[in-house]
């Protein structure tokens, strides 16, 4: 294909956007509506996913070290834990640190515990984090069987349920996103198909005048791409503005450590890029697939 023909296809594709007036408006409208839905849902799901991740990251194993162990034995135990599969970090927290944390966490009531500073009844502790939070239970079981370990705490029962819940939530979210994207593809390509059906006669004429399928298809490709891009503008605007507001307000008002929305930069931009990509893809796909039907003249 000659360069000037490529340019011709570009020109024609862009001109068609104007020539088809209301049909263009209908297609762009369909893209816009569905992409706003997809975008909002994606933002929600990705944030919930992030929160689930945050919760899982907070899961740690508190290993209470037997009071009878001497310093060397404690160090050895630490090394032993570190060597376990799936362990990311092992940090030592002395019983004095533990008491200080306890006092701090209890606020005014914690003052009564200050009496114990002379004769601290708490244990030294190893705080263990696993690389994959799902390994927590496994690792905790192994640690609990080691000599010199008095007790292992990781929120048994709660953690298992949390992981199961997160797993289901993620799968359902993923299924919903896939479903929504497919619905979007279906809706948009149908709208585009209707607008192209109205032009099936034109496609037939082009063929009778000697145009190859490729020659006819390219301007439609460009037109579909443009419809997708035009249709993404408003959704991207809505998402950038909406997310900017959300990111600046929600995080400040809700102070649970895990409720932390993904930062506006880069998340909102990445999401915009995804929306633009989906829009362009659906536009091209809908348009090229619809033309294909009418090329057999």
């Amino acid at each position, binding site marked *: 294909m*000659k360069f*000037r023909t490529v340019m*011709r296809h570009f020109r024609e594709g862009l001109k068609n956007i104007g020539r088809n007036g209301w049909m263009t408006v209908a297609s762009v409208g369909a893209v816009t509506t569905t992409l706003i839905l997809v975008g909002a849902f994606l933002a929600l799901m990705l944030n919930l996913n992030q929160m689930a991740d945050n919760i899982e990251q907070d899961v740690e194993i508190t290993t209470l070290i037997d009071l009878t162990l001497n310093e060397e034995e404690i160090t050895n135990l630490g090394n032993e834990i570190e060597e376990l599969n799936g362990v990311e970090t092992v940090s030592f927290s002395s019983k004095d640190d533990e008491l200080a944390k306890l006092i701090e966490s209890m606020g005014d009531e914690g003052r009564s515990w200050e009496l114990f500073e002379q004769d601290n009844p708490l244990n030294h502790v190893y705080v263990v984090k696993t690389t994959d939070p799902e390994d927590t239970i496994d690792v905790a079981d192994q640690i609990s069987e080691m000599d010199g370990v008095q007790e292992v705490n990781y929120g048994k029962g709660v953690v298992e349920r949390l992981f199961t819940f997160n797993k289901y939530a993620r799968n359902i979210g993923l299924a919903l996103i896939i479903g929504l994207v497919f619905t979007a593809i279906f809706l948009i390509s149908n709208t585009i198909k209707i607008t192209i059906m109205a032009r099936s006669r034109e496609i*037939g*004429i082009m*063929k*009778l*005048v*000697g145009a*190859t399928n490729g020659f006819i298809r390219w301007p439609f490709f460009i037109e579909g791409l443009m419809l997708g891009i035009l249709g993404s503008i408003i959704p991207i605007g809505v998402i950038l503005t909406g997310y900017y507001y959300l990111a600046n307000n929600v995080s400040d008002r809700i102070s649970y450590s895990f409720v932390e929305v993904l930062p506006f930069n880069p998340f909102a931009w990445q999401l915009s890029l995804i929306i633009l990509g989906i829009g362009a893809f659906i536009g091209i796909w809908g348009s090229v697939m619809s033309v294909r039907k009418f090329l057999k003249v």
Partner: protein
Amino acid sequence: MILMNDVYKTYPNGVTALNGVNVDIKQGEFVYVVGPSGAGKSTFIKLIYREVKPSKGSILINEMNMSELKEKKVPLLRRDIGVIFQDFKLLPKLTVYENIAFALEVIEESPKKIRNRVMEVLDLVGLKNKARFIPDELSGGEQQRVSIARAIVNNPKIVIADEPTGNLDPDTSWGIMKTFEEINARGTTILMATHSKEIVNTIKKRVIAIEDGLIVRDEHRGEYGYEV
């Protein structure tokens, strides 16, 4: 140039349009195709530019065998055949200029050549001042002339016209016929289906008469032969 050997055409709905047609049209001939409505003239013409395929028999156009012609090669065949359709088949959203230029764009001509050539044929059909109009803004006769301009713009080897003067006033009709004679004189084969007794009997050329899907008459410098 156009060679048909025992050609049959039956449509999927069971209607038989051609019933064993044999014809040989040489390069540079001017041929009228006459006959009553529904006799098979349009099918005869459509077979040439491959809008329909024969049910049986062989067709050779420009040395291309229609039964062996691959779908991909059909555009190449059509670029050598300028067709003037009864219903014009103009692209409704393109201007007169763009409609005609389209036939040159598909063969990737240079913009300069396209511009010159389109203006040339517009002049020939007398529509130079309507280049920027869209088909809906033109009269039937003017649309017909755009269709003619598009058919001849890339100097095809064959020009096929299905009732090209059917919608035109007598003056324009004779003008169009003059154009056909001019391009025929340059060596282009012309095949024209018509109901115009006056034209056929005045500008004498070869006449092929089709009735009930068969060629019933094939005369050089023939007459229209039907009562109007």
